[in-house]
């Protein structure tokens, strides 16, 4: 079968036909949602071990640490930290709102910057908490579960903040994102909100209850 040169049909003349799209759903957002679904299950497995330790093994709660005292968590400081992290969700949303409704890239930059700073403050306070807790992961199983949950969450905050830093670079250097198109930004911010929600759950289940 003879073929004809039909490069004129092809966008950008790079040899690729236009993508097949049977749907208007954003691919990037869908992928991020599925990824978050996967992350939820990862945290679920860590919450599972926490619940096993709490409801299947422990006779008293909080359990007794190796030093003979019940485990004690700094609820007040962490409560403040929780507020910081929750606030960061709002600052990020504010930045996104500036871009999407006003086309204001400067506002987005400011929003991102404040969010990243709040995230960093959260991590610093968390590490400070680890230093002053008075028990290590090698203590009773509760300690392992506590460090695993909070540690993995901290890692996720770090990853989320890194994503936001990269978005900041895109805005700053490539002048990327517009009210019409901001999929990577929206996906990164969705991830950040997810990390916040996990923390709120974690705070309630591990610290408060």
């Amino acid at each position, binding site marked *: 079968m003879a*073929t004809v040169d*039909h490069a004129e049909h092809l966008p950008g003349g790079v040899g690729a036909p236009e993508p097949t799209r*049977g749907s208007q759903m954003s691919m990037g957002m869908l*992928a991020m949602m599925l990824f978050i679904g*996967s992350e939820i299950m990862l945290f679920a497995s860590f919450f*599972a071990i926490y619940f*096993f330790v709490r409801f299947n093994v422990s006779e008293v709660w909080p359990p007794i640490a190796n030093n003979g005292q019940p485990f004690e968590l700094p609820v007040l400081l962490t409560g403040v930290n929780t507020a910081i992290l929750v606030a960061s969700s709002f600052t990020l949303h504010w930045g996104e709102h500036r871009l999407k409704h006003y086309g204001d890239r400067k506002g987005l930059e400011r929003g991102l910057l404040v969010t990243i700073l709040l995230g960093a403050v959260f991590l610093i306070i968390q590490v400070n908490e680890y230093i002053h807790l008075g028990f290590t*992961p090698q203590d009773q199983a509760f300690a392992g579960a506590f460090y695993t949950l909070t540690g993995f969450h901290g890692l996720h905050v770090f990853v989320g903040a890194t994503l936001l830093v990269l978005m900041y670079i*895109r805005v700053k250097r490539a002048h990327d994102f517009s009210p019409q198109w901001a999929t990577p930004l929206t996906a990164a911010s969705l991830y950040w909100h997810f990390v916040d929600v996990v923390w709120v759950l974690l705070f309630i289940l591990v610290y408060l209850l």
Partner: protein
Amino acid sequence: MATYAPTHSHPGHHHHHMDPRPLSYWWKRAFVYTTVSIGLSFALVYLLREAFGLTPAWEGEVYYAVAAGVGTIAFTIGIGCWDYWFRWLRGKQVDPEDHSFHGAHSWKDYLKVNTDHKVIGIQYLVAILFFLLVGGLFALLVRAELATPGETIGDGETYNGLFSVHATVMIFLFVIPAFAALVNYILPIMIGAKDMAFPRMNAFSFWLFIPGGLMMIASPLVGAFSAGWTAYAPLANQGGTGQTLFEMGVQVVGASSIASAINILVTVFTMRAPGMTVWRMPLLVWGSATQSALVVFGTPFIAGSQFLTMFDRIMGTNFFNAAQGGDIIAYQHIFWFYSHPAVYIMILPGFGIISEVIATFSRKPIFGYRAIAFSTVAIAVLGFGVWAHHMFVSGMAAWLRVPMMITTIIIAVPTGVKVFGWLGTLWRGKIHLKTPMLYALGFVLSFVIGGLSGVILGTIPTDIQVTDTYFIVAHIHYVFVAGSLMTIFAGIFFWYPKMTGRMYNERLGQWSFWLMFIGLNGAFMPMHWLGLHGMPRRVATYDERFAELNMFISAMSLMMGVATLLVIYNLIVSLKKGDKAPWNPWRSRSLEWLVSSPPSLFNFEATPQVVGGPYQYGIPGARHAVVFAPQEAGGGEFTEIPTRTILVVANQTVASQPLVDEIRRRSEEGLWRFTFAVPVEDGDARAAERRLQTALSALAEDGIDASGTVVKGDPFAAAAAVTSEEDVQEILLATFPTGESPWMDEDMVDRLRKATGLGLNRVVVRPEEALRPLRLRGSGRVAIVADQALGGQGLTDAVGGMADEGGLSAVLIAPLDLDIPGWTDEAGERRDEVTARMQRSIASLGALGVHADGEVLDGPLADAIALAVREYGAKRIVLIVARGGRLDTGDALSGAQAAAGGVPVEHVVVDAEAPAAPAGS
């Protein structure tokens, strides 16, 4: 091997630049990044341990774990997966439509990062076949240990390592990625897409899989993990470095699997061609999407479980240490919450493959399409609610047992729905027993046994009785080998022509099936009995009374090994020697069969339009999809293909030059496609298959879309077999000249015209043209040098056998080696006699669809060899000699080898008595 056919594609790839950097650049970079990062991670761990005052500073497992993780990421960066993303992240301008890593021009492009889903599919396929061999080797070692009751090849600890590595390799590195291989290649084409949703992430998934896999198979070198693939805590906590590599390997391979599952889901959700509603998706798409959902939501649980055991092992946490407030049962709950859904991860795409194969080779719409689709989803949902049936004897909460038993028994229902769907499809279908269909039928038959033993095991009392016996081993192998492996092989054979553009060797394929089928049933069936009589699993020794059965099982496992090697041999050899594959060798309906084999660079020239279901076999006029191609003339307008079908009815004349010329001429006048129907009333159906394949291959080389089938019966039956399924516009009847053709004696032209109500053209082929079939371009030129064997059935069979391995054109050379002057009458008589035998061989080979020329010469063997090499350019010389004949000596062979120079010479001895069957009428 290029991934795309030159036909129906961009000649010369005007704008398609491949990245110019050579293979060595990427692999050097990968090596440097990996080693440097491993060194840095050692240094970092050391510094951190010093900084926090952790003693001792050297805690090997910590270093290995960190190095394994960091090294893996560094490897993917070095090999080039991240280059595009890093450019984007640094704020550089990037071209999202950068295709410089897309498609393969040579084998080298398969060894570096490639974004083409077809290349990635092949990369996965090669990798999983390698891991299958590794896993199979470990299986054979396990069976060697168990061949006799005592310690046979090693001690108990060695044995623990053997079965652990075997299971892990087969599950994580063969079965699960095998579906990634097939789905990567087929699924985007099936739904009418140009590629996966995220081609770069797709490449990343593959290159993540490789270091993860290597980590797992490297573990025997450092002391294999020996706690089984389930790695139960606290047993796994005692493992050494091998266990660390297992835990990190599971993380890495799991991450790869999640990334590829997200990719598949997004592809299926957003990239289906217009018109492809969910109820028009092929069942493989249903199976794969559902499986991907299981991967996305299930796999994090095994990641979690392996993190927890690893922390226990190398950080000193106490999750599974009862003395420190830990909970041992928790490991099993978390592990099985993934690993039960994982068994559906390992079979749902297989169910999809079986649905494709059975519908295609039964020529019937799949029975209960929606029921099968729903049952797939039902299995996935229910699959998350049965995990504790693995733990009936673990000491878990007693109240959990009965609910889990009930859900376990319920989950057999959707699986049963599928089995009845397949049986309903087979019912009164026109069944074609090609290799993929054999595997599919073998799957249905033996998978049901595995499914039923699953229900038996789901009942608590039985399970308590047979837990940790060979009954469990029998069950798991009936679902993984008789299940997953058979579906994978069915899929590989089914899509092999599409992926490579070559047909596999059908005869070898069928051999491999029977060896595998008998081997697996022979190996795993007796295990039920062993289990019921109390032979424990995972123990290197056993009671004397089980000795004979175990020896039998070990022998059967060797047979499966042979079958596997035969499959791999077939796949490799057919790459070069296989017949050219037509676009649609199976006359299948789904989209991947409506494009060239292999498909063009971006699969489709223009987005196809789906207009109906994918399984409407036997419904004339029904279409699944409309594919477009640039029109011959008219400045690149896209037009719908294929428009109209010509039915070609021919038997002896199928592979003749006049018929093929006529088809070429017709295909030039417009977008015709051709379906052959070859009626065979009493002749040799295999010879008819051979002739048909020759014709299809010749047409495939010209890019003409043709497919065909051999039908038992007269030409009316043949025509009806096609017109009952396809819209046919015209008939092309090829016959011998009037007077020499039995068909013409029966007035076939008018009668066929009346019977079908279609226009009919006749192509006249002279008998000598029919007996001189097409010389296939690009097929191997083989010189056959023969003595008294010439003219005998043995020679015909031997050459026919070679032709079955791949298209060839033969030249027969008969050296007379005259010891008398060439002008004497006696010499003349001997020449005439040999020439007659030569004609007999050429005719009987022609009837098999093998093109052959011949030459008789006076001189000795050495002259014949020289002639073959010099004049005929033979790439391979075969001495076919009669047993005890003139050339059946070692001297003759060595003399021939000396005369042949570098050309390989083979030696075949045949019986010369029976003269070759005369050519057909």
